[in-house]
């Protein structure tokens, strides 16, 4: 049983926000950096704490650590209600780990105007912890937006190539997605008759009186479209590679790693249990869109990339296809696989963005054709990069393996044809992943790289870069070797609800 004298979830949300506020109030740079360690570290410690104690914590309505606070809108059924269930726990932990790694990487990055950069990252971190700790779907949305705004600003100010265009495109696409999903959530609020955004209350009301089938179809369609844009469902994905290509590394790590999972999480936590008929109605279009669009089309597009960071961005779009497939499959196994994949992908894509930036600092280019032979000069970097590539492909030993495997198993019952196409995607990701690793690190150095290496002496990863990378890799392998650490809680939460209601799909 947790014995903290305060609410760990609230503290994990507000510690980074408080540090951000302190930095905004004009704290000197030295203290700002020191305090930023606290701001990124505390959520991680608290996340590990709740992970450890989750099994023994008291459960209310299927949630552990449940607390609620009034924000003066109780009359409208809006209140800050925090709690974790088996679906949100893994993502809460993911947010803590990736946030800490991204924070460490940002602190050592020596970016211009580092204080403001750290401040924005801290706001993002606070929002991320809030997204997955909220039981109230209004605050779930609210914290997502809180984390999203700093992304736009960071892309606009610290971004790389085409940052203005990328920031604008990112903002418009993601606002559209967010607005559509907001209307979907309002539709749930009104149509369910619950007049409450509290997920527990919504579940209770809808269990007593399920929504009409057509209403379910419409709301699910709205949510799938809105969340789909946020998760870069093909063909609404074009913001993602562009945005990630331009985003500064820590922002890309947090967004691609954690924030993007908001949409999938929303579908699993909200849409699946509340709108089972909607899922049945939309599962085939969704699955085909995901397998043909995200997995195959984007897979081939990824192979064609000549720019390392764009390639990582596209590969992240591609992997989201598997997640949509798992959701379309709908069974406990499939949805559980999606949650595992979300965690695994979050860790591995964050690691990938981190290493890509570290590569860039040594090669001064993202162009794959101008690299080669980096392994001789930076063996640790190349070892980590190859490990991250293996994780991305989904080799056993890494968390990604369990996610993809369970999704494929669940998918076979849904549609063998789609499964075959989806498995082909693994080959595609092996092709581009291994080819990129080979291009960057092995073989003789290209003339361009030799020239750059002569001008800027190439060193291996510094410890300040290694540490965040190792944290991410360790988490990947820990879950890879011991998936039960997440799946026990996940199973307990998923089994009663979707399996009973979505059983018709099987």
């Amino acid at each position, binding site marked *: 049983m947790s014995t903290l004298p305060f609410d760990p979830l609230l503290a994990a949300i507000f510690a980074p926000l408080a540090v951000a506020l302190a930095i905004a109030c004009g704290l000197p740079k030295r203290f700002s950096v020191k305090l930023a360690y606290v701001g990124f570290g505390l959520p991680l410690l608290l996340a590990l704490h709740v992970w450890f104690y989750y099994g023994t914590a008291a459960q209310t309505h299927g949630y552990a650590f449940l607390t609620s606070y*009034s*924000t*003066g*809108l109780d*009359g*409208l059924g809006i209140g800050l209600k925090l709690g974790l269930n088996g679906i949100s726990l893994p993502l809460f932990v993911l947010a803590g780990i990736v946030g800490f790694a991204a924070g460490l990487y940002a602190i050592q990055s020596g970016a211009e105007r580092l204080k403001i950069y750290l401040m924005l990252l801290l706001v993002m971190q606070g929002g991320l912890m809030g997204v997955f700790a909220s039981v109230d779907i*209004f605050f779930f*949305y*609210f914290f997502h*937006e*809180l984390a999203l*705004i700093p992304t*736009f*600003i960071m892309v*606009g*100010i610290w971004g790389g190539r085409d*940052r*203005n265009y990328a*920031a*604008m495109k990112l*903002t*418009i696409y993601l*606002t*559209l997605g967010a*607005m*559509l999903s*907001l*209307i979907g959530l*309002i*539709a749930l*609020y*009104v149509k369910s008759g619950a007049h409450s955004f509290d997920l527990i209350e919504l579940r209770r009301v809808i269990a007593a009186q399920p929504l009409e089938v057509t209403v379910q179809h419409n709301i699910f369609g709205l949510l799938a479209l809105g969340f789909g844009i946020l998760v870069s469902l093909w063909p609404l994905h074009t913001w993602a590679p562009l945005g990630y290509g331009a985003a500064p590394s820590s922002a890309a790590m947090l967004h691609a790693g954690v924030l993007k999972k908001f949409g999938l999480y929303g579908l699993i936590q909200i849409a699946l249990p509340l709108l089972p008929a909607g899922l049945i109605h939309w599962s085939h279009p969704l699955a085909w869109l995901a397998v043909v669009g995200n997995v195959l089309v984007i897979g081939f597009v990824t192979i064609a990339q000549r720019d390392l960071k764009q390639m990582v961005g596209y590969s992240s779009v591609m992997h989201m296809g598997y997640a949509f497939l798992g959701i379309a499959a709908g069974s406990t196994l499939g949805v559980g696989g999606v949650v595992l994949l979300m965690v695994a992908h979050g860790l591995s894509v964050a690691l990938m963005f981190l290493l890509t930036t570290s590569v860039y600092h040594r090669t001064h280019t993202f162009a794959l054709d101008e690299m080669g032979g980096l392994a001789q000069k930076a063996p640790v970097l190349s070892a980590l990069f190859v490990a991250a590539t293996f994780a991305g492909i989904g080799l056993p030993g890494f968390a990604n393996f369990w996610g993809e495997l369970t999704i494929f198993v669940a998918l076979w019952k849904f549609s063998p044809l789609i499964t075959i196409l989806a498995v082909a995607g693994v080959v595609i990701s092996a092709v581009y992943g291994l080819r990129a690793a080979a291009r960057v690190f092995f073989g003789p150095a290209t003339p361009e790289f030799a020239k750059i290496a002569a001008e800027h002496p190439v060193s291996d990863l510094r410890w300040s870069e290694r540490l965040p990378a190792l944290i991410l890799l360790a988490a990947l392998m820990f879950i890879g070797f011991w998936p039960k650490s997440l799946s026990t809680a996940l199973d307990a939460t998923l089994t009663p609800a979707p399996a009973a209601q979505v059983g018709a799909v099987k």
Partner: protein
Amino acid sequence: MDISVLQTLASRNLWGAITPEILLGGLALVLLVIELLFPKEHGRIVPVAALVGLVTILGGVLFNAPSAYLNQETFNGLLVHTHGGQVMRVFFLLAAIMVCVIARVSLAKQTLPRVEFYHIVLVVTAAMMLLAQSNHLVLFFVALETVTIGLYILVSYYRTSLTLEAGLKYLVMGALSSSLMLFGIVLLYGVAGNPALPAHTAQSMHYGQLAAFLAANPHNFLASIGIVLVLAGVAFKIGAFPFQIWVPDVYQGAPTPVTAFLAVSSKAVGFTALLALAGTVFASYAWLVAPVLTFFAATTLLFGNFAALTQHNVKRLIGLSGVSHAGFLLLGVAAVSRAPMAVGAIYFYLFAYLLASFAVFGVMAHVAGANDADQELDHYAGLAKDRPFLALVLALGLGSLAGIPPLVGFMGKLFIFIAAFQAGLYGLLAIAVIGVVVSIYYYFGWIKAAFFETWGKSADAPAHPARTPVDFVTGFALSALALAVVVLGFYQGPLGVWLSAR
């Protein structure tokens, strides 16, 4: 008529009920006296006196809330003191305070008499407060004309060619709309006094009597023409399509504090009138009012947002974005008949709009040069570097106007959307979503101009005018606005309870 009738009539004149308005009128006169007594220093004293007076009156109104006259008709039914009226009183007082704060900054860049400006602002504010509590079409029209005539003078206050052009446009369009509305009122008056019709009444300007008459004759042809004309007149005030054509030119030409006054108070006047008329008096004509409002809301949302996309002058931009805000509010008004929470949502939206708009206008007054009409987006280049405080206030204000969480503007939009969904206005909601996404583009463009240096940094980019330093009073007011924009986004607490009370 013997004297006792007059006595009974006079005994219903509860002057205490309009103490704040009387005090405002008195304060306006005091300002004129100050100019006579201190001919040299009145430039400094008058704004301070106006501000102190306004804050005191606001304090008084808040301290005496709820008013002793709540839910009571006074002056023989000319006024009714509802909770909504109290809310709007506070709203107009807050707006007047902010107009005076911005005027201090903006007028300092001109060589013009000061006193008259503050005088007119106070008188107009008093008229707005009366209008928010009017219960009779005569008082409604007289108060509205007081507001409009005061604004005619304020709009052309700077006497430059653009300002005079703006003043003339506002005058012509205002006169047109007033005459439309007057014609509508006369039609309603005439038809409601027709003895051949059921429930005819001699008191047909009184809201309650008129509503009773309309309920008894739900399909009268003349009455429906009157209703449409009155709504058209109100649509001019709020800048709803197709009565928005004056907005960009007048907003650009008018002095910045007057633009703010037009954008916030004058728009809010229109919406209080619309709530009172469309929501209650014309309730039995929903078959007519609902499609008219739906048309207004849909076209206003689309026009405001798409027209604002191409603007480079920030005053025109904020004017057209204000048109789109009128569209969001109209969405709320359209929902009133079927979703009771819409009234509270509209009040909340108005307050959110007030806070954010004045934050933006406050920054605009500092960035503007001597030529007040010439405020381009390019002038904001590098604002974040030179004046981080102003840039932060600007970003919060614009973010809130765009409806980005966690700022208060988002909560306003959320409440309106929930109300609209409850009322089943799905088509309008879809248009509103398009509107929000489009609006992100131009608000973001402005924030980009202030924050991301690369914007507009071509070789021949015009140098921006010198930026006024922020003094204590303005700094305090802007900080308070910025803080309110953030805090009310997180925690609506007392405000939410107060606004949704009946």
